[in-house]
Every structure is written in C-alpha cells, then in structure tokens.
C-alpha cells in the first residue's frame, strides 16, 4: 500500500471536525501573542497582516484539494468545506481588524480608500466573493441549489484566490518573495483548471465532429 493509499484510507475514517479545531489553533496562538507582547512593536499591523496571510493560506489550500485529488490521487475533498470556511473566518477577522483597529471606523477614510486604493478595492472584492461561498457551505444549500448551480457559484473561489494574492502583491513595497509565491501558487492552481477545461472542450468538440 502506497503512502497516498494510507492517507486516503485514514482520511475516510477521520471526521472533518478536527480540521476546524486545528484551524483555530493559529488564531489562539495570535491571541496569545497579542496579550503577551509577542506581536511586536506594532501589534495592530502584525495582527492584521497575519490574519490575512493565514486566510490566504487556507484559500490556497482549498484550491489545491481538487488538483491533489486528480494528480496525486490524494482524496481530501471531504475536508474542503472546512478549509474553505476557515479561509473565510480568517479573512473576515482580517477585515474586522482593518475596520476596527486600523481604520478605527473612520468611514470617510475607509470609503475613500475603497475607491481610491486598488489594493483595498481588490481585497474587498475577494472578501465579498467569499461571503456567498461561506453562506452556502452546507448540505442544505447544495440540495436546495442543485449540485450544478452550487458548483458554478463556488467557482467564485477562483476570483477570491486571485483577489487575495493580488491584494498582497499590491500592498508591499518593492518585490519581496512571499506575495510572489502566493501569486504563483494561485496562478498554478487556476492554470491547471484552465487546462482541464480546455481538454474537456476539445473532447466535446471531437465527439460532436464524429
């Protein structure tokens, strides 16, 4: 039995709630650091940036589930909902820290930033794209919407991934390596899907021609 088989077999037995528990650990760690001075000299920025980065990490992880299944035969699809919801929760906290602690609800500045600053606008687009996904990440919604419509809606995750990576890239000065890596990861995960889509179309066209 290969390692992949072992992981798949274990994954089938493990429920998904431990993902939520594990996914909360980074938050607890941040809260601990916050109250022990571990977030450094500028805790607001540090908290804001770390929440955003963890959100982006979960988002990238959720986008990696399907390619992992198809290429590595690693089936983690039953955990995808938990990973996606965790991404949403961290991004939500990131937005709340920005609004409450960083911008301190100075709405004139917030609104001006939203329309004048492309990186904030793009970040907000990513956050808004995650809201319908979070709201429909339950069995009831899938049943009610029908699998096809649900799947279509959840393609918004691609938009959120692009927006999140670009948002990070656009807010830094110069070209540090981390945002470049996130952009590359999102680009790779979406290009894989573009390739699948192309193949499907070619196959369909070939069939129609016969």
């Amino acid at each position, binding site marked *: 039995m290969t390692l992949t088989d072992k992981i798949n077999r274990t994954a089938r037995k493990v429920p998904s709630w431990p993902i939520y528990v594990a996914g909360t650990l980074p938050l607890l760690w941040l809260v601990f650091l916050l109250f022990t001075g571990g977030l*450094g000299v500028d805790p607001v920025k540090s908290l804001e940036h770390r929440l955003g980065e963890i959100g982006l990490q979960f988002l990238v992880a959720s986008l990696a589930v399907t390619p992992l299944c198809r290429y590595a035969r690693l089936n983690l699809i039953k955990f995808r909902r938990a990973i996606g919801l965790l991404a949403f929760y961290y991004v939500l906290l990131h937005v709340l820290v920005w609004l409450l602690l960083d911008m301190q609800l*100075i709405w004139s500045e917030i609104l001006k930033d939203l329309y004048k*600053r492309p990186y904030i606008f793009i970040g907000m687009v990513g956050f808004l794209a995650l809201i319908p996904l979070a709201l429909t990440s339950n069995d009831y919604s899938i049943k009610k919407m029908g699998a096809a419509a649900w799947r279509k809606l959840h393609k918004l995750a691609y938009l959120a991934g692009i927006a999140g990576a670009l948002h990070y890239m656009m807010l830094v*000065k110069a070209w540090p390596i981390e945002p470049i890596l996130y952009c590359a990861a999102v680009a790779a995960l979406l290009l894989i899907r573009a390739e699948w889509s192309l193949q499907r179309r070619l196959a369909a066209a070939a069939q129609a021609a016969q």
Partner: protein
Amino acid sequence: MAKVSNRLRWSDVTPKSDYLNRRDLIAGAGAVAVGAIAGPAMAAKLDHTKSAYSTDAQPNTFEQITNYNNFYEFGTGKDDPAKHAHRLTTKPWSVEIGGLVDKPGNYDLDDLLNGIALEERIYRFRCVEAWSMVIPWIGFELKALLDKVGVNPSAKYVSFETLVRPDEMVGQNYPLLDWPYVEGLRLDEAMHPLTIMATGLYGEEMPNQNGAPIRLVVPWKYGFKSIKSVVKIELTESEPPATWNIQNPREYGFYSNVNPKVDHPRWSQATERVIGQGLLARRRPTLMFNGYADEVADLYAGMDLTTNY
C-alpha cells in the same frame, strides 16, 4: 596600505588654532564627564547637550525604536534588522567625501567625529507607510560637516550612499532594491539646521539596526530619505539619484516631504498610526512637513508640492 596612509585626518582640515582650542575644551569636558560614565554601558555612552530643536513629545521606547525598522539591507520584515544587523561590523568605518568640495578624501569616522559636539535631537519620525514614532537621536548638524570640507559654490545637491557588504547585510543578497541604497538632498535642505547626521540614540551609540554608525536624519521628510550606514557623501551640481525614486518614481518623489494632502498612490497620507500607543490608540492627523512647517516651509516657497512630491 596605501589607502590607509592617504587617509585625511580632521587635523588636515581644521584650522590649527581651533584644533588646539578644542583640545583644551575636550580635556575640560572629560574631567567633568568622568563621574557620569560609570556603569556597564559606558563604552557606548555619548556625551551630548540638549537642543531647542527637540520636540516635547514623549519619545518611543528604546525597545520600540530598535525592533521596528525598515532597513531592507537586513530583510523586509520590520523585525529583520533587529535579528540580522548584529552581523554588521562598524569599526573601522570610513566615509568618502567627494565631488564639489575643497577637501575631498576618505575620512576615518573617528577622525570625522573628533571634536564635533553632539546634541540630542528628539524628532518626530514619519514613515511613508503612515506610521510614526518619536526618536531621541544623538547627532550633529550636517552643515557642520559640509562646512568643514568646504562646499564649492557650484554645488547644488548632496548625495549619500549606504555600505554594500552582502556577507554582513544579508538582504543585499537579493535584488530587492538597486544596491547600494542612495539618497540625496538639495543643498539648502542639507544645510538646514534640522538636518542632522545621527551617530546614536537614547544617549548611546547607534544600534546597528538603526543605521550604525552614522546616518542621515531629515525630520520633515518621509523616513526613507534618512539614509542609514552612510559610507559616501558627494556634492553635485545635478539632482542625484534616490533609491525609492528609482524603484518607483510614481510613488516616491525626490523630495518626499511629509504632506498629508498628497497621498501615496496606494494609500492615504492624511493620518498616521503612532507606534507604541497600544491596540486601541487613535490615528492622528499627519502634519504638513511632519510638524516642521515653521522651520522648513520657506525652502519650498513657490513650488507645487503636488508635482514635486
């Protein structure tokens, strides 16, 4: 070896009478200071006087000032300089002074500082990233240095250059910026009494992460203008290049004066977060020229600061 023997000393550029007088002064000051320099940190303590140019604002703590730095030579994280700057060796250190000056040369820093009276300048410090601190620098007016080397009448600008030493400055192993870091000032800005070369803070020698052993401080401009770990100063006739201006001319102008009305293309400069005031501290409105308008606004009379940002 030839390099060392050619090195000019301050005794070469200082009139003999001043030079001798200063020796008396230093001897006198030394006798007074003996009582004050006991304790473990005595090697790093710098004698200094207070200055009327200092702000009354409460300075940030030493801990904050030395653990929140933009010094990309040591990495892009705010805590990277504190982690990596200990590798930098600052002794010996020499500063090459050249261009349109009467006495160009490669000066040993100790000679350069010998006899220069240090002052404490408690300045507001506003970063282009919209945060601010208050820092008790120890330093001296750049004008004093320029007067000593003699500025030619044709000089209009001063350019500065940071050390390049990738084995000690680990960030320089990556092409994040076009190394060496360079900056420049117009001559009248450089000669302004608020413009200092700082060699310390909190009464002690400059910590490496803050730009040891000698750095520029221009309190009415965004922090990146205040170039660190300076090894070269040159007087020029034309506007010298500036690192962030080269990196992104649309976002970082040559002047880079603190101006709440001219936003950075990607963020507002109207307000700032004051570092060290806790989680719930209010943002504060940013002041024109970082609050130094009374002293420096004249330098820019008649200039459109929206285009000359």
